[in-house]
């Protein structure tokens, strides 16, 4: 494996990690808000809060890691993405800022403020939508470089069926991933009333997810036929992904093994995400940033990879600890242990 490939793999793994943990978080915010509207709040709010409270900061770090990593491994991408994404990027940051702080505020400060909850719920959908523009832009055709000035073509972006398909996919995936996880968590918590509600959400968002993925396939074929061709070379990954989806759907529908169902959902997204990623290579931002031409120098790459491995040695035990204490600890999950200080 070349350094380049190793570098991009590390980044892609973290982006995937962010996608999963952030989806759970974003979706949960939305469901939390939605459930207050439909009067089911007391049913599911507890489950959501118990899971989210200890981990929200960790979720954020995944994103920071990806961003710092891409600048580290591919310094030129800072130039292209930085200049072109100034507006959508800032939009996403502001939303993230509102969301993160208001989450903490409403959780520790003023309980049950409707407005905070609304902000929290709405930003959960807007953030994935604006972050997904990065992937859209990487397909090429949305950036124009004239005389050394990088410009994002907003007109093209907002009228492209491809970019809307991606936004749609981002939204429904968030809700689907979140609902399947929370179903599992509610089942672990033996909270049957929450389980009933969340299981319904999971089933309801499954079909739209598949529908949106198909849309993206069609749109990409139109937008970037070259990429579509190379996706076909990895079609086995997408087929396996679909099988995982069917498996997960079956389990949830038959009210069985929610843990396995969520695992299948993760594998489903992993396969699709990595299939998309590997077929995208060797270009990173089509056609400006290239895996081999725009990589950082060898020395820095070596150091970064070394730091990454050392970091993992520190992180994996810590993540194991937090999961053991909060995710796989029956009495915490069931809410019989006292919560925060």
């Amino acid at each position, binding site marked *: 494996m070349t350094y380049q490939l190793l570098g991009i793999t590390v980044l892609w793994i973290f982006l995937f990690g962010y996608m999963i943990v952030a989806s759970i978080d974003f979706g949960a915010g939305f469901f939390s808000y939605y459930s207050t509207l439909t009067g089911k709040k007391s049913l599911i709010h507890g489950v959501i809060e118990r899971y989210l409270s200890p981990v929200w900061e960790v979720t954020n770090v995944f994103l920071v890691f990806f961003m710092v990593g891409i600048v580290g491994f591919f310094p030129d991408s800072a130039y292209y993405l930085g*200049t072109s994404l100034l507006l959508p990027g800032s939009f996403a*940051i502001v939303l993230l800022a509102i969301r*993160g702080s208001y989450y903490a505020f409403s959780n520790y400060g003023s309980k049950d403020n409707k407005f905070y909850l609304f902000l929290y719920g709405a930003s959960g959908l807007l953030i994935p939508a604006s972050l997904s523009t990065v992937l859209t832009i990487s397909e090429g055709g949305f950036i124009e470089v004239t005389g050394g000035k990088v410009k994002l073509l907003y007109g093209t972006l907002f009228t492209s069926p491809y970019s809307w398909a991606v936004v749609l996919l981002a939204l429904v995936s968030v809700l689907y991933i979140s609902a399947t996880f929370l179903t599992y968590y509610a089942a672990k918590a033996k909270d049957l009333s929450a389980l009933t509600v969340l299981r319904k959400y999971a089933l309801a968002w499954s079909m739209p997810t598949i529908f949106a993925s198909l849309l993206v396939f069609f749109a990409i074929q139109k937008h970037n036929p070259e990429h579509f061709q190379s996706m076909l070379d990895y079609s086995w990954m997408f087929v396996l992904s679909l099988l995982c989806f069917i498996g997960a759907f079956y389990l949830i529908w038959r009210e069985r093994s929610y843990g396995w169902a969520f695992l299948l959902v993760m594998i489903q997204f992993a396969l699709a995400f990595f299939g998309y990623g590997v077929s995208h290579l060797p270009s990173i931002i089509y056609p400006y940033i290239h895996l081999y031409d725009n990589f950082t120098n060898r020395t820095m790459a070596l150091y970064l990879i070394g*730091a990454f491995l050392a*970091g993992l040695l520190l992180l994996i035990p810590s993540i194991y600890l937090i999961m053991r204490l909060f995710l796989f600890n029956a009495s915490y999950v069931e809410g019989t242990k006292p919560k925060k200080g």
Partner: protein
Amino acid sequence: MHFPNDPETLSRILTGLTLGFHIIYATVGVGVPLMIALAEWMGIRRKDSHYILLARRWARGFVITVAVGVVTGTAIGFMLSLLWPSFMQIAGQAIALPLFMETFAFFFEAIFLGIYLYTWDRFKKQTTHFLLVIPVVIGSSASAFFITTVNAFMNTPQGFTLKDNRITDINPLKAMFNPATPTEVSHVLTSSYMTSAYILAAIAAFSLLRRKDHVYYKKALKLTMVAALVFSFATAAVGDLSGKFLAKYQPEKLAAAEWHFETKAYAPLVIGGFLDKNNEIRFGLKIPYALSILAHDKPSGVVKGLNDYPVDERPPLFVHYLFDGMVSIGVFLIIIAVLYNLAFIWRKWSPYNRLLLRGILWGGPLAMLAIECGWIYAEIGRQPWILRGYMKTSQGATTSDHVGLILIVFASLYVVLGFTSVKILRKLFRNHPAEEELAHLEANAGKEVRL
């Protein structure tokens, strides 16, 4: 008035605004975990539940400040790439390592903070819970360490060769451990610890001034003021070393702070005053030889003056006031800490003298002001360079036309975040007054209490 609206100026304003806002929460983020750890440790060692309650209440408030620290920090992380793309393109090659390692420090801190906050009553032994705060202290100080090395690199870049916009011969460790690193990192860490100690002391002093004289507040004041004494001396000592560092590696920054134009020995230190048209100092208080001593430890030390630099490579001269502000506040904080601790030892004077308490109350905000002065001095004193000697700030900036809009959006965001975080903090402590929890403690005294 003509409002600047070129992308470079706007980017500089936005960067300064964001960092200036972040640093408030970041300083608290670096220092308060240490104070929490100290309090919990004291509580365990002395079997005194007051200290545990102290740690617990500080931790509760800390969550709110961390939240704002995290979101503004994330904003800077993005903003560096968004506003300074050309700078990051070059710097990314040489200094990506500490930036990257910083995220691991965040991870480490975030994970253990999550665990720490939610496990007060979960372990049989309080010591187990205490152990969980150690990684939080290490993680937050490590992130300050890493990010400060990046800033040190901007002051004294090394560890690479730049030729025709291409970077070669990279040595990431040399870049990270550049000449500015030792003083800058230790000054930032000690000043963060001191500032946090002072802020917590100010809160205790506030309660005592309000005639809430439960021994709980006195213990809080004692703990924080002893820490403040240690760290205020450390801050000043390291600050002195920073001055020597500047004299050697960034003399123009020191000269700008001191309005020192002619290179010469026996140079005086100027406090206050203003410059007239001919760059003559008016009304300033001159302390003979002090600048030479600050720079070289001896009155005969030769201090380089601004006239040795081309006019377009001199930093703005108003940084003089920022430097003066920082140093005067530093001296004030040392005096207050010494007075309190002396009063405590001698017992002739009450350490709860209202004037002294008021001084401590002022100490908290003033320490934060000194942090702001210090940073703005360090950053503006580097101008016109973004990477001293290699890249001018104007070359690093974005060319996008939308910076003005974004500046407005972020400025409003900070206003809202600043106000709400204060509001929430006040509400948090007003709804759960310490008296209530203390009464609860006392009611349970004698019985097996676990906090």
